[in-house]
């Protein structure tokens, strides 16, 4: 596969820029961008996981130094996400053999990006027009869902306490959450922070600072494990692609963080929402437009 190095570097920088600007991982943008460029979906997903392991390591270290990681919670999440990740890698293998992996990835992304993009767009447009007034209608609804889930988790076995976060709950809660995120890492090349963080804040009621550190810790070791497994099982990690992405995203993150300090937060979220919606629309359009040639050819690697 011949791909323009500068383009990949730019993708890395763009996604790093956005993540520095808004504070999201950006895995959910890298994979679709790589697929648009013509990189096979399995390679995009696997190299994306390797890239995230790279970029998450520095940030995790900083949070560890600041004592922002709840290791007990993190380890239970990690056990869950390793199990989920391992299952996802074999699921990817089965789907690849059936020739359906690309379809599954594209549809999962359309759903995911459509959902994230539209909800972010509504939220940030509201914030921009009401200029900073707290969103009164959303918060109670979220809290209600959260408390219902919390009541359900409270009835589960294996109750245990997490001193760093100051919460007490069943170990099954983080285990299942981790497993769901692990499957997504294998199938979509995303870290899952966009699910993990709200669930930990609203459902598990953990302090925000600890949530960010713990989710980064979990992300680092989940993406690392998935990267190793994808290389081992599916031979799909492209080292050059991943390294270029890491370089690009490190540069982009620095720029993004610098600019992000100067721009108002709701405008930043609007920018990200527009980018996400644009990618989702592009994916849907690709699905709807009849292809120029319905046939396509891939060279089998050895």
């Amino acid at each position, binding site marked *: 596969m*011949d791909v323009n190095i500068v383009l990949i570097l730019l993708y890395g920088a763009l996604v790093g820029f956005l993540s520095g600007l808004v504070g999201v991982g950006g895995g959910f943008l890298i994979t679709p961008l790589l697929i648009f460029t013509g990189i096979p979906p399995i390679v995009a997903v696997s190299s994306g996981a390797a890239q995230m392991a790279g970029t998450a390591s520095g940030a995790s270290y900083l949070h560890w130094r600041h004592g922002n990681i709840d290791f007990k919670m993190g380890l239970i999440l990690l056990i869950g996400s390793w199990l989920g990740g391992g299952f996802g890698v074999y699921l990817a293998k089965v789907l690849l053999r059936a*020739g359906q992996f690309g379809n599954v990835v594209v549809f999962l992304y359309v759903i995911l990006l459509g959902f994230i993009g539209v909800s972010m767009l509504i939220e940030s447009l509201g914030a921009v027009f009401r200029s900073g007034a707290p969103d009164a209608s959303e918060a109670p609804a979220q809290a209600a869902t959260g408390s219902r889930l919390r009541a359900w988790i409270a009835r589960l076995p294996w109750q245990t306490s997490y001193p760093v976060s100051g919460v007490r709950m069943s170990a099954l809660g983080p285990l299942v959450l981790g497993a769901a995120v692990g499957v997504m890492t294998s199938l979509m090349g995303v870290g899952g922070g966009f699910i993990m963080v709200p669930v930990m804040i609203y459902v598990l009621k953990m302090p925000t600072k600890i949530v960010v550190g713990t989710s980064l810790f979990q992300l680092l070791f989940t993406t*690392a494990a998935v*990267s190793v497994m994808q290389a081992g099982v599916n031979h799909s990690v492209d080292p050059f692609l991943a390294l270029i992405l890491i370089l690009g995203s490190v540069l982009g993150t620095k720029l993004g963080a610098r600019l992000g300090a100067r721009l108002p937060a709701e405008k930043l979220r609007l920018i990200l929402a527009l980018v996400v919606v644009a990618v989702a629309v592009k994916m849907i359009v690709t699905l709807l437009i009849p292809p120029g040639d319905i046939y396509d050819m891939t060279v089998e690697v*050895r």
Partner: protein
Amino acid sequence: MARWLRCLLFVSIWMLPLPSWADEPLVVAPGTSEVRITTDFAGTELKAIGSMRGPADLIIKLVGPPQEVTLSRETKLGPFWIGGDSVKMESAPSLLFLYATAPIASILPPAEQQKYGLLLEGVPVRVEPHLQAHAADDWQKAFFRLKERQGYYHEDDTAIKVFGNRLFIADMRLPGDLQVGTYAVETLVVKSGKVVGRNLGEFKVRLAGIERRVWNAAHDHSWLFGGLFTLLAMLLGFALNAIPYRRTH
């Protein structure tokens, strides 16, 4: 030019082993015996220089190593175009270049073209799984169409220059994305609709340098490679992110 000179260093007598046959003496001399694909490889020029006796037409056929490809077809599911069925195509050459001094169809009758494999859409392709003849035919047509569109199968009647009916130089441009393996070069002399001279040669394309080592490691020891590479990525990310941060704060 520099690349060509470097190739010459690998010294090489392309077309040494098999003597030419037939009444027409034909000498074809050095291009290269090896093309190395390094990280910055973006295709290369190959030259063939040769001599023949008297006026005649020439055909040079360049055949790449066989390659296994998967062909897939999109189907419509409701309003969506999604990936549908797929087949494997085996044993067809990865690359087929036909160079000639005139359009091949105008200098050789179809039977002779068939005999020497000079039809772009005439190479045998095995389709797996076995399909009904007409279904397989669709896939084969798509295969040749894609190969031609991607520039791996083509015919060119301007690349060979003949000087004074004796000396010829052929400029052959190889694309950047080459299948690794042995490439065969067959030079044919054509007079009045018949092949009267023939010369066979070959050269090898292989991965060189770090690219080859990484590639081999990724495939032969995939778990070890995955582990080490992920560790490397983590260390790199750590070095680039955390260390400058520590210094400034």
